[in-house]
């Protein structure tokens, strides 16, 4: 080969290598994943700035948890003003998250999520939160603030919610005259080929369990026995047969509905309405009776290995302050936790029905719909493996 040829080939090879080493997409997370770029700049109120002149100056905060939930954009200006550095880490999975803290790695802040929170609190990952140190604690909606899922067995608060949502399904009002009231309606012939669903046994089985009255919708787990699982399994099979396809994420579900190939998706997220609007279609959300209890929250906790606890408290307080929390809600397309923020938040956060959380007993249950792990299932109660086996069988039949 000529010299020129050699140079050309080398350049091409390099180009291929560079392309392959391109930035990875952040791992998809729970419903609280960030989808849109921040829509507003970050104005910090003067009182927030005044608060800032304190323990956090020049500090470095180390965060372990979900992307977008450490105020990366919302508190950028504040961090710049105070010379605070933020290091974010996500170890790839919840089990690795647990391992990282257990092993003793130093983290000042961590994500605490509603479905793994109770277990993580039990595992002793976090320190108790002294809520008197949070100025904005009392502004939090009672439905969130008083919820048991924030607390450990000792009754102390271990996590501070920064965003929440409910568990609707999304449908196309133009094509669905009567939004179904129960997931069991999706077994009817009239729904054949008209909806998409997520490939999740825990989602489908737990909702059916409530619909059949096998589960009371309270407490940490969905406990059903083998016979009940059989019933649920048969119903789920019928639902899968009726479903047209599995949706691969909320965006995918939206695209399919906009393209006209489905009229409904279980479950849903209000952000889908925004995305559909961008494409000129109008969607709406509604609730199954059995999932009106479902919902989620994500928050911040302070790991036991935290170094700069004072700064951590300040940071958390800022995250739930009026202005900042409004931005968080907007950016994450989720409900705000601060009742003042609810007034000023943008449309992304306005979709949520804050009446649901205005009272002590939240109409949103924030419960974890998981079945028990294999080693903790009580006698006669089906565990996650049983559910997975059942799901495996019906996917082959559908």
């Amino acid at each position, binding site marked *: 080969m000529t010299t020129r040829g050699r140079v050309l080939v080398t350049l091409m090879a390099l180009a291929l290598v560079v392309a392959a080493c391109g930035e990875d997409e952040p791992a998809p997370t729970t419903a609280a994943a960030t989808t849109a770029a921040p829509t507003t700049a970050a104005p910090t109120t003067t009182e927030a700035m005044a608060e800032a002149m304190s323990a956090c100056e020049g500090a470095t905060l180390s965060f372990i948890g979900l992307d977008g939930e450490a105020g990366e954009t919302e508190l950028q200006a504040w961090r710049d003003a105070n010379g605070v550095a933020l290091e974010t880490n996500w170890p790839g999975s919840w089990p690795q998250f647990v391992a990282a803290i257990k092993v003793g790695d130093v983290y000042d802040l961590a994500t605490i999520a509603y479905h793994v929170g109770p277990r993580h609190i039990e595992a002793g990952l976090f320190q108790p939160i002294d809520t008197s140190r949070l100025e904005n604690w009392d502004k939090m909606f009672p439905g969130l603030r008083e919820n048991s899922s924030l607390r450990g067995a000792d009754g102390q608060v271990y996590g501070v919610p920064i965003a929440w949502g409910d568990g609707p399904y999304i449908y196309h009002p133009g094509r669905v005259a009567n939004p179904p009231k129960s997931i069991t309606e999706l077994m009817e012939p009239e729904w054949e080929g008209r909806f998409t669903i997520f490939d999740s046994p825990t989602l489908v089985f737990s909702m059916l369990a409530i619909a059949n009255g096998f589960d009371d919708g309270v407490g940490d787990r969905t406990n059903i026995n083998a016979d009940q699982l059989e019933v649920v399994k048969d119903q789920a099979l019928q639902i*899968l047969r009726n479903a047209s396809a599995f949706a691969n994420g909320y965006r995918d579900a939206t695209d399919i509905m906009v*393209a006209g*190939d489905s009229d409904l998706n279980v479950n849903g997220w209000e952000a889908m309405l925004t995305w559909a609007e961008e494409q000129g279609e109008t969607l709406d959300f509604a609730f199954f009776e059995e999932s009106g209890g479902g919902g989620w929250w994500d928050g911040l906790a302070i790991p036991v290995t935290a170094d700069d606890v004072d700064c951590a408290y300040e940071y958390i307080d800022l995250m739930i302050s009026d202005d900042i929390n409004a931005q968080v809600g907007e950016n994450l397309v989720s409900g705000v936790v601060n009742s003042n923020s609810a007034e000023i938040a943008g449309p992304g956060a306005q979709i949520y029905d804050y009446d649901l959380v205005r009272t002590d007993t939240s109409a949103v249950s924030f419960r974890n719909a998981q079945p028990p792990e294999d080693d903790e299932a009580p006698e006669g109660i089906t565990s996650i493996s049983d559910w997975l086996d059942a799901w495996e069988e019906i996917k*082959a039949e559908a």
Partner: protein
Amino acid sequence: MIESVTRRGPRRKRSRRGTSGEVLVAIDRRRRVAAWLQLFPGSAYFTLLFLVPLAGLLAMSFFRLVDFDPVPAFVLSNYAEVLTTSIHVRLGLRTIQVAGILTVIVLLVSFPCAYVLNFVFRAKRQLLYFLILVSLFGGYIVRIYAWRSILGRQGVINQTLIGMGIIEEPIRYLLNSMFAVGASLVNFLIPLGVLPIYAAMQNVSPHVIEAARDLGASRIRAARQIVLPLSMRGVRAATAFVFIATLGEWVTPRLLGGTKDLLIGNRIEFYFGQSLEWPQGAALAMTLMVAMGVFAYIIISLMKRLTR
């Protein structure tokens, strides 16, 4: 020349005869070393990125699963579990069946395509061939999404049929069905089928087709009786490529096939992605690989036997 070569090597006093023999060995050794060096990057790449992970997968298939974590061990229970599950047998058979049907369809399209490229568009055939290959570069997932919009209720096919008055309601079955999976796979596999057949046909002179026609054969008969046997090597390769590629498919059935587990690949994906039973998944994957190897062998030797 002989003098200069021996000067580079170790100093030795040899007779003329010995020297020339030594030169031959020296050159041969240098050439062999050069050959090995040239093979090294490719083999290293292949070994590191293919053989090593494959070995890892093989090892994993013997591990034990403890608390959703694979633990190094040597147990055969994974294979036992995987091979005795009736769903697997059923899915396996269905996968073979689907692979067979798709292979036939792809061959029926690829052979005439390669023929037309080689003999009808003889002047422009390289360019057209490249265009066919380009569709392979388009990206696997992108193609699937393209098919989704083509086959959907508001897609081209349905809208055309409605516009022509042939149907009133869009046909739902076009998407999220075996048909959609088949259409997308065939679309993807055709370049794989055309490639080897086209290459084999390069060795067939257009004049030999003329000879057949001169003797009374129509173009189609000449293609069947002359061109096909002479490019059989390529047809065999195409059959093997397409069949084996289909056996491992899971993304297309996942995205276009509805909620059902259509092919054995979906089952393997379930093990790795949902139920997190990696050793079982690895066992099933290895079984599939062995099956692929067996099929490749059967197909090729069967075809060799049937066609000269």
